[in-house]
């Protein structure tokens, strides 16, 4: 029996447990989970939906396997790792022995160094909230009841989603972002301008390239935010979306190497102690941590495969697509992947194409290398964004001219209007069920078929689903008009100006 202790019961820790138990068909593992939060695991990605008022908190709960191999301790944090003893001490004073220890402790909200804010999140003034946990979301929602104006500090994905969510609730929102572009890791200046314009149409203000300096308080409650340029934005609510700090203390205290996160190898284990693994936001793998859940879930899957023996010693790392960033906000369509943003490396092999359409709020850029899409930025075009993600994650070959990637490949068909009978070629199928063409119907007209019934008898048109009946009527009317016109020239003028007569005629035909 292999004893696995998992520290952390968040999105990645709980997913790892699910994956491991599913892969453990031989029943070789027992799993103990220590979860610092007292609640069941939940989907942090959806907290902005709660802010927007679209989701209830219950919708965020993630699966917990019911399994005799599994012991979950909620509201119990890990205090220390004793590597010699191979055990973890928890806050209840219980010692958990392990053969494998998995750290999935996640990350905490980073509190920015503003005047008026202490670095300890427990002592934030009234009206100031990070957005990291379900409790944070609950508190922000409560705060919106008394807040008419809010400032969101930090315009990464979380900040923009939070801003849109608050705006959906009717709060006046200003986004403050010190970098020169919104989501600057993903967007360059031009792309950022397109997003800024879209925010404007949602009623969200922005201050880009200006940092915040101070929280302005009255009676211990927030009244405004002072910016670096001196402007004071009045606000009763400040949401801090200024990044996260990986929870590495437990590992560091145990003498394990940490940097921005717990340093792990390709096999997701600590170099100094291969029985200890780290996954998710607390981990720093060789390719770096992205802070995206896709990477954490991929790590969970790989580690479960490694431990259960379902994969070779070093699981293949297929990170393609784990860096897709998709903004989840009502009215803002933003998706980026791979090579994007202004910090991108200069690579001669990269072919970069862009479509810039500020008036329509659209900005699309693709980066192609060796016939494969290696990066893209798409603002304001949901259909193109979805196509690009599919192309990027599956590495399917791009068109001979990659410029085609900038527009939707699939017409939606919504704008289709029925062609008038005169415009149809003779080869056009009118009755699909029975493969009857316009030409065939015209030929029967020449042979004397004048009604739908007569045409049905001779061509079987309309005798399947009947969906073409109106089209056949229109065709009959047109054929009639054409004949009249050719036989009686003076009629032409009347026909041109009184189409109503013919419409009535076709209604009679279809009713007969």
């Amino acid at each position, binding site marked *: 029996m292999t004893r696995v202790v998992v520290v952390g019961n968040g999105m990645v820790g709980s997913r790892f447990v699910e994956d491991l138990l599913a892969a453990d068909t031989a029943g070789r593992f027992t799993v103990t989970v220590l979860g610092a939060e007292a609640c069941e695991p939940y989907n942090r990605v959806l907290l902005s939906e709660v802010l927007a008022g679209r989701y209830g908190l219950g919708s965020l709960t993630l*699966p917990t396997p019911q399994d005799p191999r599994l012991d979950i301790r909620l509201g119990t944090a890990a205090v220390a790792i004793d590597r010699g003893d191979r055990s973890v001490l928890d806050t209840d004073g219980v010692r958990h022995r392990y053969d494998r220890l998995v750290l999935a402790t996640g990350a905490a909200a980073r509190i920015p160094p503003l005047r008026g804010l202490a670095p300890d999140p427990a002592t934030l003034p009234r009206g100031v909230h990070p957005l990291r946990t379900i409790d944070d979301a609950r508190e922000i929602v409560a705060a919106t009841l008394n807040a008419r104006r809010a400032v969101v500090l930090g315009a990464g994905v979380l900040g923009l989603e939070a801003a849109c969510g608050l705006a959906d609730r009717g709060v006046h929102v200003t986004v403050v972002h010190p970098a020169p572009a919104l989501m600057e890791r993903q967007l360059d200046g031009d792309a950022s301008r397109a997003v800024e314009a879209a925010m404007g149409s949602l009623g969200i203000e922005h201050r880009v390239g200006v940092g915040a300096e101070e929280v302005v308080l009255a009676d211990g409650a927030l009244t405004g935010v002072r910016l670096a340029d001196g402007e004071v934005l009045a606000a009763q609510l400040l949401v801090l979306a200024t990044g996260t700090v990986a929870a590495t203390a437990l590992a560091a205290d145990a003498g394990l190497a940490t940097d921005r996160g717990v340093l792990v190898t390709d096999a997701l284990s600590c170099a100094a102690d291969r029985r200890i693994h780290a996954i998710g936001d607390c981990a720093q793998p060789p390719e770096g941590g992205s802070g995206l859940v896709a990477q954490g879930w991929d790590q969970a899957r790989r580690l479960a495969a490694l431990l259960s023996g379902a994969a070779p010693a070093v699981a293949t790392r297929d990170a393609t697509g784990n860096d897709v960033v998709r903004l989840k906000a009502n009215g803002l369509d933003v998706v980026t992947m791979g090579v994007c943003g202004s910090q991108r490396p200069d690579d001669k092999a990269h072919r970069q194409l862009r479509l810039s359409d500020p008036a329509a709020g659209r900005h699309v850029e693709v980066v192609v290398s060796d016939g494969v899409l290696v990066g893209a930025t798409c603002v304001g075009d949901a259909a193109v964004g979805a196509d690009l993600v599919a192309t990027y994650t599956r590495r399917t070959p791009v068109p001979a001219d990659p410029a085609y990637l900038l527009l939707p490949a699939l017409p939606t068909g919504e704008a289709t209007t029925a062609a008038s009978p005169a415009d149809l070629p003779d080869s056009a199928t009118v009755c699909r069920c029975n493969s009857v063409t316009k030409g065939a119907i015209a030929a029967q007209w020449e042979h004397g078929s004048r009604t739908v019934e007569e045409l049905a008898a001779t061509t079987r048109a309309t005798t399947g689903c009947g969906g073409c009946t109106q089209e056949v009527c229109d065709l009959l009317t047109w054929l009639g008009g054409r004949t009249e016109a050719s036989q009686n020239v003076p009629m032409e003028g009347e026909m041109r100006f009184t189409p109503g007569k013919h419409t009535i005629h076709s209604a009679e035909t279809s009713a007969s």
Partner: protein
Amino acid sequence: MTASGVSTHCPYCALQCAQALTPVAGGVEVDGRDFPTNRGGLCRKGWTSAAVLRAPDRLTTPLVRGTDGALRPASWEEALDLVAERLLRTRQVHGADAVAVFGGGGLTNEKAYQLGKFARVALGTANIDYNGRFCMSSAAAAANRSLGLDRGLPFPLADLGGAGAVLLLGSNLAETMPPAVQHLAGARARGGLVVVDPRRSATARLVEGGQGLHLQPVPGTDLVVLLALLHVVLAEGLADAAYVQERTSGLADVQRSVAAWWPERAERECGVPAGLLRRTARLLAAASPTHGGPGAYVLTGRGVEQSSQGTATVTAAINLALALGLPGRVGSGYGALTGQGNGQGGREHGQKADQLPGYRMVDDPAARAHVAAVWGVAPESLPGKGLPAVELLRSIGTDGGPRALLVHGSNLAVSAPNVDEVRRRLRGLDLLVVCDFVPSETAQLADVVLPVTQWAEEEGTLTSLEGRVIRRRKVLDPPDGVRSELWVWSELARRLGSPGVFDTDPAAVFDELARASAGGRADYSGLSHERLDTGEALHWPCPATSGAPHPGTPRVFTDRFPTPDGRARLVPVDHHGPLDDVRPDAPVYLVTGRVLQHYQSGAQTRRVPELAAEVPQPWVELHPLLALRLGVEDAAPVRLTGRRGRLTAAARVTDTIRPDTVFMPFHWGGAESVNLLTNDATDPVSGMPEFKVCAVDVQAGAPRGARA
């Protein structure tokens, strides 16, 4: 439409359009007949169906493969003696399970029933399965697990007419059963038809002009679409809480499982914009009864079911329907659109490896006792579970696998996945016996071919896609030399010294079927040919009664679900994607499907001159961007290469398909069969092969004749 002539139904699909057939010199004349499903309409296949009766190569004499390797005519006596003698020898040397039987979803109820009985009683083999495994098995497995019963549509098809929304996944019914399109008119008029298909198919085009929505996902990701739709329904509080509380169990686990499938994540997997997924979920919810809507339906077809996650996909569709409070409500529901003519009845009466008549399970002691009593044999003499179709086909002709195979109503040499391997396996058998009315590709591989009756030459019943039992009637005598399969089994049973009685009269066989089904999930015991001949609309279950006859059950689930606790089960499922996925040396998805002019393996429709002339050969549909990249022009040859095979066909360039996908219809044999490429990996629950998606390399091909 008024029609004289004999009232019967079309020989092709499960819609079973009503026809009136009038005998005329040299054949019959076909007319449409008013009926709730087709309302007098017929598609091109139905109108031209009489041509198959006059197929110039119609089989009219048994054929036996001679020592020279060629099939030669033989007398029935000689052929049946030969088959019986070799079956007995195989059984003696290799055991009873060394004889296998492969049936079909086109066989009448009577034949399907008798074939199952013949296998278990006369042959004593566990190894009987049928082509419905390629067709309805995923829908059946999921419906049984979640709803306690598998009746394709658990409501009359005409009920769809009042719906505010119809979500159609993996069905191209505008091509496969065109007259059914009439029933979508209501939903279309309300802007509520939602079609999920990687192609803008004829069915997807029905949503144009504001009549609904088309979702065009990456092949093999329909399950993701469904998970995201359920995510939105649950997260946005759109579910029918009272219904879920009263009539279902398992919501909590399913809600947690879909919490991980928010639309933006789903978009990444399935390529459908997140906003469109949300809009779809809200459209379905708005049409649902709990929100005061006129009703909503979720319908699945083979496009989503023929997958290694087919059962999971149907389960997700049922989960969605249950969350919206649809199944068991008049005017709403979940249903699977059955494909083959008797795909419904054919899966109820004992052709399946694990089932006995009446949808009873072969490993249920009470079921065995009941059926054995009807058959007049000891329960312990009945074999247990046999191998499901793909496993069966993989094992035939191998060491320890079946050595002899009887094929009825199926054209495996065209219709099976990874078909070249299946052809090899068929050739490796000691004995292959094929009953057919035309020399199908499978018949041409046989050691013995037995010519049998078809459609207008026989009496019987079928059970249509809505679970209604309908009569097929004889209009004309079969050609000289042709016999019914009921007669064939009776003759073989006698030669094999079988216990039990093998009737040859379809009405008598039906009466026995009715008794065998009594008390089963698909209970036909209140039905008879005589009662059906009154024209009464009778949907199963229709049990025998002591008093007034049971009126049949047009709508099931209205009071309770036939599960132990009466509740439907929400079952969590997750997505893994195609098993043969795109990769650098095969970067394009291949999907397959049907065309209006042809049916299944094409054995019938390719013999109808009008249809064959219109669509004489298959093609490969590809997007202009893919064509441009490969330098392929419209109508030029393209070469598809996959893990299991390769083929060349003409290109058809169209912007109705995703640029990462090609499509090819599957009605042709030999080197034109797309099943040379399809994947025979199967769904772990249903045994359904993954026909509908695999990865291929696509290249401009050499012109015809230039190939080495």
